[in-house]
């Protein structure tokens, strides 16, 4: 038997935060700037986009030309480590259902991989049950969160345009970039179809906002992390300045095992395994904040069992893990013949779309309850792995450079020229919609399986309902209509009822929320309106877990706002010695 003892970190802290993504990074930032002593546990390595660089690297600097690997699922140049499967850290499924779980264990977490789409929830998004009778209302309203959205807009920076839409509130915007050619054609088609196509809303600095971060220089590579910190990631925009206060210690490669509680039921700290030496540690703090991601935080709570909390900490309601919901997703793409053989010029922009479509219809007139937004992509980008694939499906369909129709496929000088000729004429679009939070979509502890650290793993049970399938059908019909109106030809993404209209498996959109939901009734919810556990006053959850419903928006901006709000509440409560 090797020497086995639990080592205690000598220093005690005011607050221990588990996870350094959007929720944890924001909490560390707010608390540290208020002079509170914070320890931030991160399950992966340190990461700094200015030092761990993939930005502005040529395709050949990756031996696989940027393709995906099991260790970096979104490709060799993507900033995010990890993927749908992690070695030695399984998760399982119940009743043959499907849920895919993306995990990125690194400083900044999954903020290192996202489109920087930074949308406020609207007034209706907090009160869906009152509108359509499905799910539940939040215990807070837009007015409660709006001041925090304002602060985050100014702290982090977001571009967009003032539109005065009823349920897509404007932020305090930096100027948006201009639409590019394929986006202008999309906008034109939207105009004919009464589908709004407006400037996108991304947390990318089109103008400098402080001396620590540079402005965007339009390399189109936000997914690689930004060496000048021109876009938002928690590591560069929140954790780094938090560390500069001198009030934060980061412990990397610290995989949290349990929340420790005392005999009175108060949280006293976290026990964790250090992945480097595989030794057990504990760290003590007056307040514990979980920000490990919706499912990982639920797992931690469920694994924190004691005689006082036999069902897991914070789970007297039995609700921890339930109401799990991810955004819906469906996509379609095509080729726009009028873009073939066009002039070459630098078409790079910000790392993502310059225009998007917010939800524009009235669900009362439709056969599904919730909406979706549309993201667009296309044009002349840097080739990556997969460039040129399937040319036999394109070069026989359209006249070539000399105006004659060729036989599909081929080889030689003429084929070589086809790759150049058709480059930059493809485009696509994806819908991201709101799913309904349901009690029977959940994650729970698998009774028989542990990971390589001996921590019991999650088992998922998730099924889409008719609501989501009908929404995907509507997406596909809309996409086909837009592509047709543009004068384009659909080349991929056609689908039918047999495959649920191409609706992505739950989890694939990486917007999973709802597992520690917020509410006023401790019997039906895990945390109160300040993200504070009903059962444990010095325990908070500040990731996507507390979301009652996810809206047809990306969750990050709301995670940030609620984490800031909860952190200010903690500062106040610590001052009053209430916790």
């Amino acid at each position, binding site marked *: 038997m090797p020497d086995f003892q639990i080592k205690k970190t000598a220093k005690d802290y005011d607050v221990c935060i588990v996870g350094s993504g959007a929720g944890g990074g924001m909490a560390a930032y707010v608390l540290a700037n208020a002079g509170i002593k914070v320890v931030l546990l991160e399950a992966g390595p340190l990461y700094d986009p200015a030092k761990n660089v993939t930005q502005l690297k040529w395709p050949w600097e990756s031996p696989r030309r940027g393709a995906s690997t099991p260790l970096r699922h979104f490709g060799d140049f993507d900033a995010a480590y990890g993927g749908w499967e992690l070695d030695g850290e399984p998760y399982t499924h119940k009743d043959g259902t499907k849920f895919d779980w993306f995990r990125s264990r690194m400083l900044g977490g999954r903020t290192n991989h996202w489109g920087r789409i930074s949308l406020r929830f609207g007034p209706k998004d907090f009160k869906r049950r009152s509108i359509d009778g499905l799910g539940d209302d939040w215990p807070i309203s837009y007015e409660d969160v709006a001041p925090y959205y304002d602060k985050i807009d100014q702290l982090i920076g977001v571009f967009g345009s003032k539109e005065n839409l009823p349920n897509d509130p404007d932020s305090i915007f930096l100027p948006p970039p201009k639409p590019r050619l394929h986006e202008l054609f999309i906008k034109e088609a939207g105009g004919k179809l009464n589908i709004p196509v407006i400037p996108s809303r991304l947390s990318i600095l089109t103008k400098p906002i402080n001396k620590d971060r540079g402005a965007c220089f339009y390399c189109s590579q936000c997914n690689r992390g930004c060496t000048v910190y021109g876009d938002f990631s928690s590591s560069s925009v929140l954790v780094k300045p938090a560390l*500069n206060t001198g009030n934060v210690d980061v412990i990397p490669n610290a995989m949290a095992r349990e929340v420790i509680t005392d005999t009175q039921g108060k949280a006293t700290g976290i026990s964790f395994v250090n992945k480097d030496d595989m030794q057990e540690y504990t760290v003590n703090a007056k307040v514990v904040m979980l920000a490990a991601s919706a499912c990982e935080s639920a797992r931690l709570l469920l694994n924190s069992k004691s005689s006082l909390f036999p069902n897991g900490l914070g789970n007297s309601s039995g609700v921890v893990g339930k109401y799990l919901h991810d955004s819906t997703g469906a996509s379609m793409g095509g080729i726009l013949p009028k873009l073939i053989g066009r002039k070459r010029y630098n078409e790079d922009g910000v790392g993502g779309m310059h225009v998007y479509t917010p939800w524009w219809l009235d669900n009362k007139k439709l056969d599904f309850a919730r909406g979706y937004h549309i993201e667009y992509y296309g044009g002349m980008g840097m080739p990556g792995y997969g460039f040129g694939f399937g040319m036999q499906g394109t070069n026989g369909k359209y006249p070539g450079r000399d105006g004659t129709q060729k036989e599909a496929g081929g080889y030689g000088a003429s084929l070589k020229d086809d790759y150049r000729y058709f480059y930059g004429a493809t485009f696509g679009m994806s819908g991201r919609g709101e799913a309904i939070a349901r009690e029977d979509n959940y994650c729970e502890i698998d009774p028989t399986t542990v990971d390589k650290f001996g921590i019991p793993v999650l088992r998922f049970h998730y099924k889409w309902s008719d609501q989501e399938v009908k929404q995907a059908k509507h997406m596909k019909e809309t996409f086909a209509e837009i592509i047709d109106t543009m004068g384009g030809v659909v080349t991929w993404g056609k689908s039918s009822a047999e495959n649920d209209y191409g609706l992505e498996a739950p989890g694939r959109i990486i917007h999973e929320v709802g597992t520690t939901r917020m509410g006023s009734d401790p019997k039906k919810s895990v945390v109160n309106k300040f993200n504070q556990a009903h059962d444990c006053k010095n325990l908070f959850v500040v990731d996507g877990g507390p979301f009652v419903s996810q809206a047809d928006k990306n969750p990050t901006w709301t995670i940030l706002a609620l984490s800031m709000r909860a952190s200010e509440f903690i500062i106040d409560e610590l001052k009053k010695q209430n916790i």
Partner: protein
Amino acid sequence: MDRRKYLKTLAVGSLGASALIACEPGTKETPKAPASFTIDRTKEELIREAKLVSETFFDEHEMKTISILTDIIIPKDGTSGSATDAKVPDFIEFIVKDMPRHQTPMRGGLKWLDIHCLKRFNADFASCSSSQQIEMVDNIAYPEKAKPELQQGVAFFNLMRDLTACGFFHQ
């Protein structure tokens, strides 16, 4: 994050924290990378990269055939060199090791091609004359007019075309 800053903030004189610093990645022995990487690589990635380049998949004959095919697909023109000029065969050797799903279609496809040429020209593809090679390629390079009995060859050539173009237009 500034690494020194990080060490400084953590060096608060605590025993536990000191123990953690000692185990922070980077202080451990880093595995030997196959080549110097100019892009960010984690410790796990470096181990995987080293393993991939230590393996060989295609034999000499297969590599010769691949080289001929890639130059037929992407020849030199007024703008740029040929596929072999851009070391596309090396890319293909690497990518089938990186993505094992390509291994059987590639190995089997090359074999299919050789057997087909043996029957028809009494020589494997690489040993055929240039005109015989082109005659063979003409039969499998056009999916919509290829004979039904040659569809396996068409599938192989589609894969060759994809990997050749992908490898070439990144150099």
